[in-house]
């Protein structure tokens, strides 16, 4: 009973964060729309009556498309923020894992760029429809992207996220060209899923949380080293989260 109350409370709190973030993103869009119209109007008026004796006019004329471009860039970011916020609305919904992986890869691009690492999503050719919790799936995938980025950072190599389907699971395969850690990862994950659970004193306690979240989603994690060239983490999600 206590666990159920905690679960409902967690879902409601996330929905609250999502609702506030979605509302704010809507407001930002409105502001961008106003800036867009005013800069557009400025351009229209200058085109209609270009001031022939004003030396700064060509400079101003060139500035307008730059503002418009930045408005549209911001609008794209706000759109992603809005979609991410809405991922917290429902803990159980029908989703295409391909789309979710594309979205979380886009959200993680900035972190990859800061570390000088290339990050690439490789969607499966067909939709990977599952019924699950989009927010928790994104949390798990992001956690493994982040770890892949850290491993790749010293040599500024690459992380890829490939989507695939097995007979009964949908998969995200996170491959990184960083230092091999597959054995260590396996031990950490196994320790988190053991009856003793995570103690908080592990080398990477969040990895334990990722493993437990994955178990709650009815999925599992496989980790392997690719010789000396990197690691492959396979995240397998069931077609539907099992009833708790």
């Amino acid at each position: 009973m206590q666990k159920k109350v905690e679960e409902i409370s967690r879902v409601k709190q996330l929905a609250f964060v999502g609702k506030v973030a979605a509302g704010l993103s809507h407001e930002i869009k409105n502001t961008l729309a106003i800036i867009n119209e005013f800069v557009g109007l400025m351009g229209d008026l200058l085109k209609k009556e270009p001031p022939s004796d004003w030396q700064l006019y060509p400079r101003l004329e060139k500035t307008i498309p730059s503002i418009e471009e930045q408005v549209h860039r911001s609008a794209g970011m706000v759109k992603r923020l809005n979609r991410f916020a809405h991922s917290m609305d429902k803990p159980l919904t029908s989703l295409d894992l391909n789309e979710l992986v594309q979205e979380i890869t886009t959200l993680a691009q900035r972190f990859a760029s800061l570390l000088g690492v290339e990050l690439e999503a490789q969607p499966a050719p067909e939709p990977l429809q599952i019924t699950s919790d989009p927010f928790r799936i994104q949390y798990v995938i992001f956690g493994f992207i982040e770890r892949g980025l850290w491993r790749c950072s010293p040599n500024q190599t690459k992380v890829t996220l490939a989507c695939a389907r097995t007979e009964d699971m949908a998969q995200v395969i996170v491959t990184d060209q960083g230092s091999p850690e597959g054995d260590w990862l396996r031990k950490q994950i196994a320790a988190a899923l053991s009856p003793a659970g995570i103690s908080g004193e592990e080398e990477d306690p969040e990895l334990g949380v990722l493993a437990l979240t994955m178990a709650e989603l009815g999925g599992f994690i496989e980790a392997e080293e690719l010789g000396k060239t990197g690691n492959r983490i396979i995240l397998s999600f069931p077609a539907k989260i099992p009833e708790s």
Partner: protein
Amino acid sequence: MAEYRVLLVDDEEEFVSALSERLELRGIEVDSALNGEDALAIMVEKTFEVVILDLMMPGLGGLEVLKQIKSAHPNTQVILLTGHGATKEGIEGMRLGAFDYLIKPVDIEEMLEKMKAAARTVGTG
């Protein structure tokens, strides 16, 4: 003489004023309203081929305004303004008879094309 008349309905006053001016510069006759109630009142007095209607407005929401427009003025085409593309409201709006939708911030050329196509279906544009 303008090719068609447009009613622009959005609660963001500055958005409405700047966009109205831009459309007028292109020879389009524009009226505007800052809420659904005023929009419906204006439509009793004047005929419009196209209504550009924001979905998220305080008071009478965009979907309710759309329903009332389609009921009282079935020949008027409504183009919805949405913040985020294929939202639940946007899809519902299309089901209720909206001609099309535009995502904010609006691309003026795309808006002109959609308004022209909408006006064409009612015999102008």
